[in-house]
């Protein structure tokens, strides 16, 4: 009987081809175009000879390629994280940051950047920021996980996340009020999020850790599908709800936390991309949505990063502004055209 879905499957395959092509295109775009002009032949030369010594070689290898890859990976992780949480909470307006992950990270970073805790460590500042964000994101996650064990309904957990967010925000704003002017600017810039300044070591970490987590998540797509009917149906079909709940939250937070700690809070991707993928692929089947989100999240974020970099060079716009500015109308128009309620 699967023959009946052939037309849908065909359309989905076409979409996969299209977005895979687009992702390659946008990565190339990000590598070639920038404030320093580099031609195709030069690029070819630099790549083939693995030239990192010359100025242009340095720019390509140590600035543009890491940044292009980071934006693709970051977008993919955020989108998948958002998808997981939307399925988990059975709520379309949920994104990875609704659970207070970004607020936790922001709080810790504000401690590091705005208070005198960093005295004597000024030269370690970028590393300290990443570490602080990491600690903040995962601390929030641990608190939420421990509460998740005790709370029955997903909605209650959602409210717990929101409240955590407000609490962190409150403390951050108090710190801002007392902060010195010079420190404030750095903090505000971090808060806007950016994919600049990624190290190869960070890219490697993202590849390995993120890859493992994504593979795990794909393995969870069967129970994720069952979860679309709600916890009671899922458990009646044989899903171990307790274990599954922990795994989902752990994976979602790990992905979102990793990106937040390295690139700062990047808004909107986690919320919007799953919707775009659902509409494009016309399905709720997580076997398709997970790879779809990885690709689509990658494209959208890397294109947004490109715009953020190039729109008003040499001024770089905050990535969150671009993601929201382009993402919101896209989601709105898709929704209105399809006349569906999600």
């Amino acid at each position, binding site marked *: *009987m699967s023959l009946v879905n052939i037309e849908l499957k065909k359309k989905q395959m076409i979409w996969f081809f299209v977005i895979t092509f687009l992702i390659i295109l946008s990565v190339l775009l990000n590598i070639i175009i920038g404030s320093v002009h580099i031609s195709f032949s030069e690029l070819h030369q630099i790549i083939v000879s693995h030239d990192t010594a010359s100025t242009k070689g340095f720019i390509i290898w140590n600035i543009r390629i890491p940044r292009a890859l980071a934006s693709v990976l970051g977008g993919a992780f955020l989108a998948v994280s958002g998808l997981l949480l939307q399925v988990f909470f059975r709520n379309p307006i949920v994104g990875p940051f609704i659970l207070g992950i970004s607020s936790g990270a922001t709080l810790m970073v504000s401690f590091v950047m705005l208070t005198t805790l960093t005295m004597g460590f000024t030269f370690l500042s970028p590393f300290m920021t990443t570490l602080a964000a990491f600690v903040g994101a995962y601390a929030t996650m641990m608190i939420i996980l421990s509460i998740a064990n005790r709370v029955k309904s997903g909605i209650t957990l959602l409210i717990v996340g929101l409240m955590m967010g407000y609490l962190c925000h409150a403390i951050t704003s108090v710190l801002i009020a007392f902060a010195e002017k010079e420190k404030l600017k750095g903090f505000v810039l971090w808060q806007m999020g950016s994919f600049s300044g990624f190290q190869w070591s960070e890219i490697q970490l993202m590849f390995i850790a993120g890859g493992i987590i994504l593979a795990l998540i794909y393995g969870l797509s069967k129970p994720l*599908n069952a979860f679309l009917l709600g916890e009671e149906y899922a458990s*009646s079909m044989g899903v171990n709800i307790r274990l599954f709940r922990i795994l989902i939250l752990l994976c979602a937070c790990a992905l979102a936390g990793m990106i937040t700690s390295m690139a700062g809070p990047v808004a909107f991707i986690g919320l919007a991309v799953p919707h775009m993928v*659902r509409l494009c692929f016309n399905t709720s089947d997580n076997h398709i949505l997970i790879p779809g989100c990885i690709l689509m999240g990658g494209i959208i974020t890397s294109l947004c990063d490109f715009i953020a970099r190039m729109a008003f060079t040499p001024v770089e716009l905050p990535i969150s502004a671009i993601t929201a500015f382009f993402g919101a109308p896209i989601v709105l128009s898709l929704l209105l055209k399809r006349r569906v309620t999600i």
Partner: protein
Amino acid sequence: MSQSQPLLQVEKLSVGYQNKVVLQNLSFNIEKGEFVSLLGPNGAGKTTLLRTLSRHLSPLAGTVYINQADLKTLTQGHLAKTMSIVLTEKVSPPFFRVWDFVALGRYPHTGFLGKLTPADEKVVMDAVKMVNAEDFLFRDINTLSDGERQKILIARALAQEPQTILLDEPTMHLDLKHRIEVMTILQSLCRDKGISVVASLHDVDIAAKISDKVGLVKDGQIIAWGEPEKILSSTSVAALYDFKDASFNRFLGSIEIKGKGNNGSVFVVAGMGSAAILYRILSKHGFSIVTGVLHENDLDFFVADSLGADCFTQPPMEAISPKNVQKAKKRIAESTCVIDTGFPLGSLNHGNFDLLKTALKMGKPVFSMRKNGDFPQLTPSALGVLFLCNDEAHLVTMIKEKLKEIL
């Protein structure tokens, strides 16, 4: 010994939540292929009981056995292959076609990634056919009506290939067509597939006609358990729902709503099923009904009795006795008007014809549905007035008009 043990055994079970016992000391068995309806008022604990049977709640005391194994000890996968559920909660995830939705029911049978084998696809298709949903196999489930969606939920439960299905109010929100269809589907699951069905229901009349067993749930316990034919009577149903203005008739298998009777009293001369519909209309319009003389096996008697009418009765196959006629005449004298349903005249009910003539003599208005000319003896005599009516509705309008003129 019987060759088969019961599928589900419940022993001294107490169900409820941490601080609150909802039902206690329940013991019953459910056999293979049995249709069990749980009846009872809202909030009696039907859902709590179902949730305990499906292991969404753990029992406060006592044990549930499935195929002689303690429910607690079963693995989740094993339980999923034994039991499936249909809940009242509305589920409609976006971008889901009927086929995909039903296929989710294969969950406990498929491998790690949930890929369907041809055998799985056949089971899904059979489940879809079982609920007559082939026509909308690829519709988005969000475009389905409540009735269609309910059928799909049942198909999904069926795709799990369970031995028992628990349903929480499966006919809620459904129109009559789908209500009957869903119940028929459930019945055929029991008859043809040998699946045990346990459903909480609100339609006592449908439950009585379809179930093998009913359980009456009230006041923290199951007050009765057994065949509906034995258990359901006007008194047990009235007690279950605290009826005052309605009653269940076990012979008719239906519920009659008693009128308020504040619109004056009418005497209906009836018999042989000629007044069943008329009684309901009169009761609905608030007339208090006195009727007679009816044979005790007459359909008219069952309906009139359920509606709480005063009945003069005669044992079956006997001619109406003069004594009964005398008593009835007294009541006619007290009534505001008399109705002749146009009952066929035979040797046993001459007494009723006598009642009509007496009414006219007493000067009572007589409303008759008898076709004019059938009985020339009924032409108006000196005092009474005879009104001829076409049907029940016409008759009620006439009574209301004329009574207004007279009073």
